[in-house]
């Protein structure tokens, strides 16, 4: 299946057989420089411990339909462990749809999605979660009537019994959650809910963290914290991070590679270095 032309020469290389190769970025250290320093406490190793395989998520030429309307057309993408992959694009271009396809909330009509070479296409969302995908959805989707603690504990479902604890780390990242442990999730302010949603995803010790506009509605200082958190998680090197973001600076500071979408297609993709601001920005503006 031919890849969308847009991918070519922009950090993508088709490998045939529907697979692609992405040129790895080489400035992990640089991004750390750019972000203010942050000393995290140890973060427990994720489920499946030593799985250090590269190129863990591959999305291959997928189509997605809502009824008759097509939201994704032949979208391909890869996300690697220890890397942050960003998806950019204007409203309604299909970013969320792409993520839904990956986590299994929306069936795809064509193409393939695999994690570490394992086909995910037919797995329901909970099975994908059990294989290490965690999702921070747009709009937070907090369980409104569960307390903050219980919201976090829902993340225990894919874990072994002995792993079922809430990592202290999460409270270090988002101290506000600690104060609010016993309040109903639905009562939190929008930004607090966003923090909770990220925390909840981390409880599952994911290998692939999928974030849909995590900075939406969050106060600047916390955005910085989230940025540091993502950076830290990346640098730990045991999870791949897929980030959809509108906040360009934030994305630029974090991502190792990127893809820009337009009308359900990837129109621009590349490594951080190739994220030529002007060109990308042009695609993102009206």
């Amino acid at each position, binding site marked *: 299946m031919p890849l969308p032309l847009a991918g070519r020469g922009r950090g993508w290389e088709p490998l045939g057989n529907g697979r692609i190769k992405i040129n790895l970025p080489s400035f992990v250290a640089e991004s750390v420089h750019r972000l203010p320093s942050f000393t995290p406490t140890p973060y427990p190793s994720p489920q499946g411990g030593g799985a250090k395989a590269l190129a863990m998520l591959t999305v291959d030429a997928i189509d997605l339909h809502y009824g008759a309307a097509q939201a994704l057309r032949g979208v391909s993408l890869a996300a690697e462990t220890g890397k942050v992959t960003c998806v950019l694009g204007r409203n309604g271009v299909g970013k969320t749809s792409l993520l839904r396809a990956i986590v299994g909330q929306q069936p795809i009509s064509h193409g393939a999605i695999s994690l570490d070479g394992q086909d995910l296409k037919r797995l329901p969302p909970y099975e994908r979660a059990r294989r290490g995908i965690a999702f921070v959805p747009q709009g937070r989707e907090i369980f409104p009537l569960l307390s903050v603690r219980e919201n976090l504990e829902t993340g225990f479902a894919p874990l072994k019994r002995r792993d079922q604890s809430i990592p202290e780390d999460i409270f270090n990242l988002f101290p506000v959650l600690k104060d609010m442990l016993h309040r109903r999730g639905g009562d939190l302010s929008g930004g607090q809910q966003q923090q909770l949603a990220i925390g909840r995803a981390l409880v599952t010790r994911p290998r692939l963290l999928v974030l849909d506009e995590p900075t939406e509605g969050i106060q600047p200082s916390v955005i910085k*914290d989230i940025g540091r958190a993502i950076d830290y998680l990346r640098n730990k090197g045991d999870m791949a991070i897929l980030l959809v973001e509108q906040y360009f600076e934030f994305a630029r500071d974090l991502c190792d590679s990127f893809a820009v979408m337009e009308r359900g297609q990837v129109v621009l993709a590349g490594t951080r270095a190739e994220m030529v601001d002007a060109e990308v920005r042009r695609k993102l503006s009206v």
Partner: protein
Amino acid sequence: MLNTTLTSALLYLDGVNVTFDGFRALNNLSLALAPNEMRAIIGPNGAGKTTMMDVITGKTRPDEGDVMFGGTVDLTKLDEAAIAELGIGRKFQKPTVFESHTVADNIRLALKGERGPWSALFGARNHIADENIDKVLEKVRLIEHRERPAADLSHGQKQWLEIAMLLAQDPKLLLVDEPVAGMTDAETEETARLLREIAQDHTVIVVEHDMAFVRDLDCKVTVLHEGSVLAEGSIDTVSANERVIEVYLGR
């Protein structure tokens, strides 16, 4: 000082307290807004910004305190519909639109006009309304989605639709909760322009976390923290404020 604001203020909050199950969301909050003023409100997550809007629009009743509109109307005594009829419109933080209506019908329902059931039942359809709808939709670039059910819009598109509904409603006082969340930078600039334009003959309260956007709005900024005002002034003054940096902007 109080008296002058009281008489000249379009919206006036004084000593407002709101508690939820013992949790104090607004703490002796006071605020005054002159007619045709635009005001940006910032503050940490959970500072009470949305709650303040809830109080103004009648969704939440304050435990204590006055909320006056136009100097004479006590908003705490009125229900949501009555407040809306006074000319207070609102965009919600989480976009809420009428999902099974088309985009156009969402606007149609928001358009300024009679709100009673009888007039809705027997009022004839007018063409001006349709034109106005198109105008508004064009402004927010949703015109091509005119006949789609609002449920099918993406998150950001719903944001725009809500803004459009607010425009159509044409209220005296606009409360805009996080309008640019989920928008691209270009769209954000666009929105700022739009709001500045509206503010020429409307009173506007904007809540946002995007500091670039707030800067763009070019208006007085109020910082809320733990339910009361922490700082007030131009964007430069407040962003230099140590406390604001500590609790909100971060270093």
